[in-house]
């Protein structure tokens, strides 16, 4: 891998053009949202808000028009999602569908699957979750045990997923499961689109450390799926998942998770920062600008049909370090104690993001796993 694959890419003017409209819409739609709600943008689930975005054509924008998308460039989509995140809009409901399930279904799905899911995704009416992790398979995803066996023209699924964000309020899960007889590791894996309303599925929310319920354990007990629940090619699940991860790892959500805290920090510091405050805020700003260049470089590779898995890992790891540093710096720069009740906007956002920060280098692949991928790209493994 070469550093030169990070090519500086400007957002083309026609993609940039949508920014003003998105900003105006958000200024109005979010005007009553307090800072603390803006801080949990990516975790903020608001089905009605998602439908409003769908009505504006801002979900599944890059999907083809005939499936309800906008045929927009990946850059136009980028503009929309970075504005949503920067403003702290509640995007969780449709996020996974927009980011990865939609493109996945377009790429690997049959026409029937595309018709069934893509228009509804674009309207902001079908929500997806990602079923990869299992109790004994986190980083070592290739060790998953959930299994689907063929029975006639049906598939029967048994096993368990865990940490599945939004499973309790999504319509579908794209799950990675084992289909090969006696298969091991990354052989014999397949992906299924699972309708979460079917019998044989139990979903139990797991409280996270803040006490909120975002992720879940999901049990499959003799779950019966039609043949057309399989997406892509039987046995090709590993390759499909790997391609999906490039979408999952390079977007602006990989470095904007703490932007609400930058905002409250700047307001808390005021217009006359001391030297240390000015220095650290300036340094964060420089890093953010640069991370955005890197992320846009990956977007242009995705737009060109490449699979920038290595570059995406660089963005995610570098971005996670940045996101995690912000709550530490906020603590260092101001004598304001974090508060989960009472306190200023800044105190509340600081409390929330201090607690969320550890997850930034876990979800979507841990720091150690990403650095392993980067090292492999450098020829060290």
């Amino acid at each position, binding site marked *: 891998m070469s*550093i*030169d694959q*990070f*090519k*500086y890419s*400007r957002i083309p003017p026609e993609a940039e053009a949508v*920014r003003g409209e998105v900003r105006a819409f958000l200024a109005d739609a979010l005007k009553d949202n307090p800072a603390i709600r803006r801080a949990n943008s990516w975790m903020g689930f608001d089905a009605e808000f998602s439908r409003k975005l769908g009505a504006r054509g801002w979900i599944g924008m890059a999907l083809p028009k005939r499936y309800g998308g906008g045929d927009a460039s990946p850059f136009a989509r980028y503009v929309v999602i*970075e504005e949503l995140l*920067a403003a702290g809009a509640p995007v969780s409901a449709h996020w996974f569908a927009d980011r990865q399930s939609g493109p996945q279904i377009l790429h690997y799905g049959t026409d029937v699957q595309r018709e069934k899911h893509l228009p509804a995704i674009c309207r902001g009416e079908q929500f997806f979750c990602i079923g990869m992790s299992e109790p004994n398979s986190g980083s070592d995803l290739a060790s998953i045990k959930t299994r689907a066996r063929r029975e006639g023209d049906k598939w029967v699924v048994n096993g368990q997923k865990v940490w599945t964000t939004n499973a309790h309020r999504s319509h579908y899960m794209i799950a990675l499961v084992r289909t090969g007889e006696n298969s091991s590791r990354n052989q014999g894996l397949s992906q299924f689109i699972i309708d979460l309303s079917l019998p044989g599925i139990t979903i139990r929310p797991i409280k996270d450390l803040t006490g909120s319920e975002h992720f879940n354990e999901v049990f499959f007990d003799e779950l019966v799926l039609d043949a057309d629940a399989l997406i892509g090619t039987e046995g090709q699940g590993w390759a499909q998942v790997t391609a999906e991860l490039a979408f999952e790892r390079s977007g602006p959500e990989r470095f904007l998770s703490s*932007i609400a805290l*930058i*905002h*409250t920090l*700047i*307001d808390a*510091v*005021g*217009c*006359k*920062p001391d*030297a240390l*405050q*000015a*220095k*650290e*805020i*300036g*340094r964060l*700003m*420089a*890093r*953010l*600008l*640069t*991370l*955005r*260049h*890197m992320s846009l*470089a990956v977007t242009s590779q995705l737009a060109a049909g490449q699979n920038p898995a290595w*570059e995406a890992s*660089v963005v995610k*790891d*570098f971005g996670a370090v940045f996101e995690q540093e912000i709550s530490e710096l906020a603590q260092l720069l101001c004598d304001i104690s974090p508060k989960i009740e009472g306190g200023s906007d800044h105190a509340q956002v600081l409390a929330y993001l201090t607690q969320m920060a550890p997850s930034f280098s876990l979800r979507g692949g841990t720091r*150690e796993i*990403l*650095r*392993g991928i*980067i*090292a492999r790209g*450098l*020829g*060290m*493994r």
Partner: protein
Amino acid sequence: MREIFDSTIERLFLDLVTPQAVMSCEGGVWPEAMWDAIEESGFTLALAPESAGGAGAAWADVCGIVRLAGRFSLPLPLPEAMLANWLLGVSGLQGCGGRLTIGAQGTLRFENGTVSGEAIDVPWGSEVDFIVAVIAGDEPRVVLLSTYGVQKIHGANIAGEPRDTLVFNEVVPLATELLPLGLYDDVLRLGGAMLRSAQIAGALECGLALTTTYAGERVQFGKPIASFQAIQHQVSVLAEHTAASAIAAEAAFAESSNERLAEFFSMAAKICSSEAAGIGAGIAHAVHGAIGFTHEHALHLTTRRLWAWRSEFGSLTEWSKKLGYAACSGGAKEFWPAITSGQLHNLKGVPA
């Protein structure tokens, strides 16, 4: 243009700018043949308009050249000469051939048509024939000065690159013009910061290449040290900072026009690369073990430049404070729009 520039310079550097050659320049030896080859190639004048005797290239075309100068530890002020000629050109003056550098710092005054005062930390100041400087004041002006007969006090940065003081006493400039509107009297400092960010990116690329190669060759406990996860993860961090520095520098060059430098992008590039320099040099040395700590091994050509360049033309702290003051004076509302537009207001008139 970019590809031709890059490949021409790379061939030239591969030929002439060997570690041996670089090492023998330490302490201020001017490599005559190397300079002549570079001058003949015309690159010192690349950024001057054609009407001023240059090639009329854009900043975006030359980022690769400056990165290569960093990668090869070029012991000559080629980047400085390019910036000097850009400034002469944009000020309506003829480009200047010959040994040329910039004086971005000092106490120069312009009185009755002559220049007096000191230019300090001038790269290769004792070796060049000409320097370009900006004289601050109500009407900041660009001056091209001959160094002939001027008092020269030798200094050197950590890498042994000459950083000299020149003392001017009522010297009549060879050419002078008021600084054009839209440029400020710190333009050479800002331009210097942009150059160093690209040189640091190039040096990190070199450090990364040396480090991955060495880790693949060095065997301990019966296997190459590259197979140890602790080593892999450190080198990954080096690669991340290299990528960040490179794209930040590319962005600064790409967004700079022939009329003005991209201020926010250049500052950001220098901030990111200055941070990367220390981290990157540390990792490269850690992985190289004792051999990398020797004078004989070429690693120090790169790492000592990283340590030098990060503090030249404004450190991480200096530029970060500037950005931070501007960000805070705009308030939270202006923060994100500044990132997406690349325009940060209030950069002027804040304490340094």
